[in-house]
């Protein structure tokens, strides 16, 4: 019972900052579209493994930071990322002990949902693009899921 009060808040904050930093890392345009949505992967990880450490607030605040970094409409990424946090927290009991492959499928669904929300809001605010480049990161993010799980697993005591 005492374990439950020790949420890995510090590790969560540090890894969230690291994920945000990876979004800012300057990359050439060509590589930029392959950059996984590290923030989403991080939010999904913590929502699965420590749903009470950050909760939906983690999604909202990291999303808001992305809004500022990307110069988007304030609230666009915040809404998408809190939705991901919410869905993952609702599903965490079902998903957390699934084998890695099934978890990866779930992560693909989350990345796709995240990008779809952003795409919809882009359309709503009058920015339309026919490019498919924006969906590429769903695939690279899925490939990164397993390494990220292993890496983040070392930052806290699994319960």
């Amino acid at each position: 019972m005492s374990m439950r009060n020790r949420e890995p808040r510090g590790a969560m904050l540090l890894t969230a900052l690291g994920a945000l930093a990876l979004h800012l890392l300057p990359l050439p345009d060509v590589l930029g579209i392959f950059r996984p949505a590290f923030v989403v992967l991080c939010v999904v990880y913590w929502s699965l493994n420590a749903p009470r450490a950050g909760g939906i607030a983690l999604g909202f605040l990291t999303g808001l930071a992305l809004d500022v970094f990307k110069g988007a409409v304030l609230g666009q990424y915040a809404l998408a990322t809190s939705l991901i946090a919410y869905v993952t927290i609702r599903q965490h009991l079902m998903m957390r002990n699934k084998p890695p492959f099934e978890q990866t499928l779930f992560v693909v669904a989350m990345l796709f949902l995240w990008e779809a929300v952003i795409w919809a809001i882009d359309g709503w605010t009058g920015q339309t693009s026919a490019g498919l480049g924006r969906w590429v990161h769903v695939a690279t993010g899925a490939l990164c899921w397993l390494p990220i799980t292993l890496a983040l697993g070392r930052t806290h005591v699994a319960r």
Partner: protein
Amino acid sequence: MSAFATGATRSLPQRGPAPGLRFFIYALLALTLMVLDQRGGWLERVRYGLQAAAYPLQLAMNSPSAAWNWTHKIFEARDALQTENAKLRETNRLLRLANLRGAALEQENAALRGLRARLPGVAEKWLPGEVIGTESTTLRQRLVIDRGAVNGIFKAQAVVAGEGLLGQTLRVGPWSTEVILLTDPEHALPVQVVRNGLRTLAVGSGDTETLALPYLPIQSDIKEGDLLVTSGLGGVFPQGYPVGRVTQVRRDGNSPLAQVRATPLAALDRDRIVSFVWFRANHPATPTAAVTAANGGDPSMKPMETPPAPSLRAPAASAAAARAAPVTAPARTPVRAPVAATRPEASSVPPTSVPAVAAPASASPAPVEPTAAAPATAAPASTPPAEAVPPASVPAISPAAATRQAAPASTPASAEQRP
């Protein structure tokens, strides 16, 4: 497992409202933010604070490349530096020579425009800044620069690089500024073809190498290689700053519009140092505050008290008149305002008709300019020669002709006309 599950469900109520309700609250908050942000700058202050908070992380993430540049600079070989130094000296020499000629050209331009004195350059001050963040997608082409409100940066300020125009400031934080590039799909720039003065809009394409010129009719006179400069409309950039070069002109019979593409001159994706520009508020070439006025206005920007129109229009109008009427000997009326202005009677000309105006205005046939009816100067010009030649044929006197006729002009115009 089941023990954990019961533990989890039991603990949730202690943590406040259920996830569904919490998500609802956050979603509502995000939607409110979006609506407020879209409906005109209600969130300017919030953004300002958030940009301040984001600055350290942006700076930190830029530090690897900054550190790389720094170490590179330190360990750069001596001969490489010497070569670069020699090259810079050579460039500097050429630039200084060009600048010498530039001053002469400016003087000449001032003379052609009828201005008494050479105007200072329209740009008053430059401030270099370093790029600390980029966002380059098909939807957004932005840069983050490490200068902000503390450096005096303001919204909708021109940003240039060595080769050409880069963009304008969009959101200003205390220490950092977001710059919207020319190639951002939301950016449209009023431009002009240097060769023939054709005006149009250059719209961003979402690609750092391409500008689109989508509003040119199929028969417009534009071709590959044309240089585009700012036209001075739009209220952000003054006239004449280089923008890009036309790379592709497609005329498709099915469409009434030509498909024109251009490449920006500035290396939008490679420049690391950019410059913010301040323009002289009272310079005629300074853009008027059309855009800023819509946002509440910039108090420092006032309509110019100098009426610039005659000084620009008069040569054109009189040139048209010169074309219309065959230039004959009597048509060369020696009425010359610059000389007349030196006459004592000319002191009654109201001070609003700045030297820039008086000269060609009184020589121009069209009486559009009220100050042209200044006593003593215009009176002999309009009445006595009217019997000899219709007023419409009062020609434009070229600067060369002006110098030729400076001497007779000192005598009354009517006396010149009689013979």
